[in-house]
C-alpha cells in the first residue's frame, strides 16, 4: 500500500465528518423585534375670522347680534378628541374701544357674552359661551377619524342697559385635545 493509498480512507472520513457538521448547525429561522411607537396625533387649523354687522335696535331688542361670517376649522386625529374655545390671553372680558367722540367706561363685557356654534355637515351644535380664564368645551368627536370641516358662527349678547357703543374684540383660540 502506497502512502497515497493509505490517505484515501482518512480524507474520506474527514469529508464525512465535515458534512455531518454542516447539516447539524444550519440556521433555518431568525427573529427581529419590531416596536413602532405611534403617538397621539391631533391636527387643527382655522381659517377666516368673525365679522358682525353694525348693531341695530332690533338686535338690542332681541338681545343678540349674530355674526355675518365665521371661521372654518379643519381637524382630524387618531384618537377621540374635543375642541375647546378660549379667549386669547385668558382674559375674562372682551376688548373695548370707545366709539368716536364718546368716553363711555369700559363695560368689561364678559367673554361668555360671545357665543360660538359648530356646524359639521348636517350636524348643528348649540351656542357656547367663550371661555375666559379656562377653556370651554365646544365640539366633541367621539371617534377618531380623518379630516372634518366645521363652520363656526357666533352671536354677541347685547344689552341696552350694559353695552355702550364701541368696538368689542378678542381673538378666539381653538384647541384640540385628546379624550
Amino acid at each position, binding site marked *: 500500500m502506497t502512502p497515497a493509498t493509505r490517505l484515501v480512507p482518512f480524507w474520506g472520513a474527514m469529508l464525512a465528518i465535515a458534512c455531518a457538521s454542516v447539516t447539524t448547525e444550519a440556521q433555518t429561522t431568525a427573529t*427581529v423585534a*419590531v*416596536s*413602532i*411607537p*405611534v*403617538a*397621539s*396625533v*391631533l*391636527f*387643527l*387649523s*382655522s381659517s*377666516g*375670522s*368673525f*365679522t*358682525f354687522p*353694525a*348693531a*341695530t*335696535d332690533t338686535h*338690542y*331688542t332681541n338681545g343678540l*347680534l349674530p355674526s355675518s361670517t*365665521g*371661521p372654518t*376649522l379643519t381637524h382630524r386625529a387618531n384618537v377621540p378628541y374635543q375642541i375647546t374655545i378660549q379667549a*386669547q390671553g385668558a382674559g375674562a372680558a372682551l376688548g373695548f374701544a370707545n*366709539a368716536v367722540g*364718546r*368716553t*363711555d367706561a369700559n363695560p368689561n363685557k364678559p367673554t361668555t357674552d*360671545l357665543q360660538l356654534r359648530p356646524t359639521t355637515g348636517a350636524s348643528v351644535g348649540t351656542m357656547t359661551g367663550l371661555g375666559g380664564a379656562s377653556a370651554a368645551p365646544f365640539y366633541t368627536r367621539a371617534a377618531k377619524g380623518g379630516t372634518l370641516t366645521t363652520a*363656526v358662527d*357666533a352671536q*354677541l349678547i*347685547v*344689552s*341696552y*342697559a350694559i*353695552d*355702550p*357703543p*364701541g*368696538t*368689542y*374684540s*378678542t*381673538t*378666539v*383660540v*381653538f*384647541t*384640540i*385635545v385628546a379624550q
Partner: protein
Amino acid sequence: MKRITTALFALSLSAAASAVSAQTTGTAAMSATIPSILYINVTGSYAFPTDAASWEAGFTAGTVAASGNATISHRANVPYKISIEASGATLGLTGAAPADAGYAKATTDFQIRPVAGTGSYIGLGAQGAGAQLLTRARGATVTTTTEAQLNVNIANDVPGTYSTTVTFTIASNY
C-alpha cells in the same frame, strides 16, 4: 442584521416626528362695532274740553288740563334726553274772529310732564328749539305716559282753536 437595525431606528424617528409636528390650536379674530342706538315711539294724543264751563274754570285757575295722554316708549345704549318742540314758532290758531286772527300764543303755554315723574311741567319749545322733557341713563325700553296743560290768560287768549303737533326727540346725552 445591521440593515434591519437601521430601518427600525428610522421608523421610531418618524413616529416621534408626527407627534411633535401635529398642529393643535387655531385662532380666529373677532370684532364687533356697535353704534349709538336710540329709539322712541309715541302713541295717543292730547285732548282738551270743549265746554265753556271748563274754560271758565281754567281761566280762573290759569290752566286747563288735557284729558288725553300721549305715551312714549324709549330706549338707548347711551345716556339720553328727550326734548319736545312744536311744529311752528307759535301755536296755530284757527276759527278766531278776524280782528283776533293775528294773535300768536306762545308754544311754551302748552306744557307737558311725565305722569310718573316728579318734575314740573315743561313748556313746549318752538320749532327748532326743543325743550328738555327728561333724561335717562342707558337702558331697555321704558314707557312714559305724559300729560299736558295749557296756560291761559283771559286778558290775552282770544276764542278760537289752538293747535300744534308735538315732536318728541331722543338724543344722546353723553
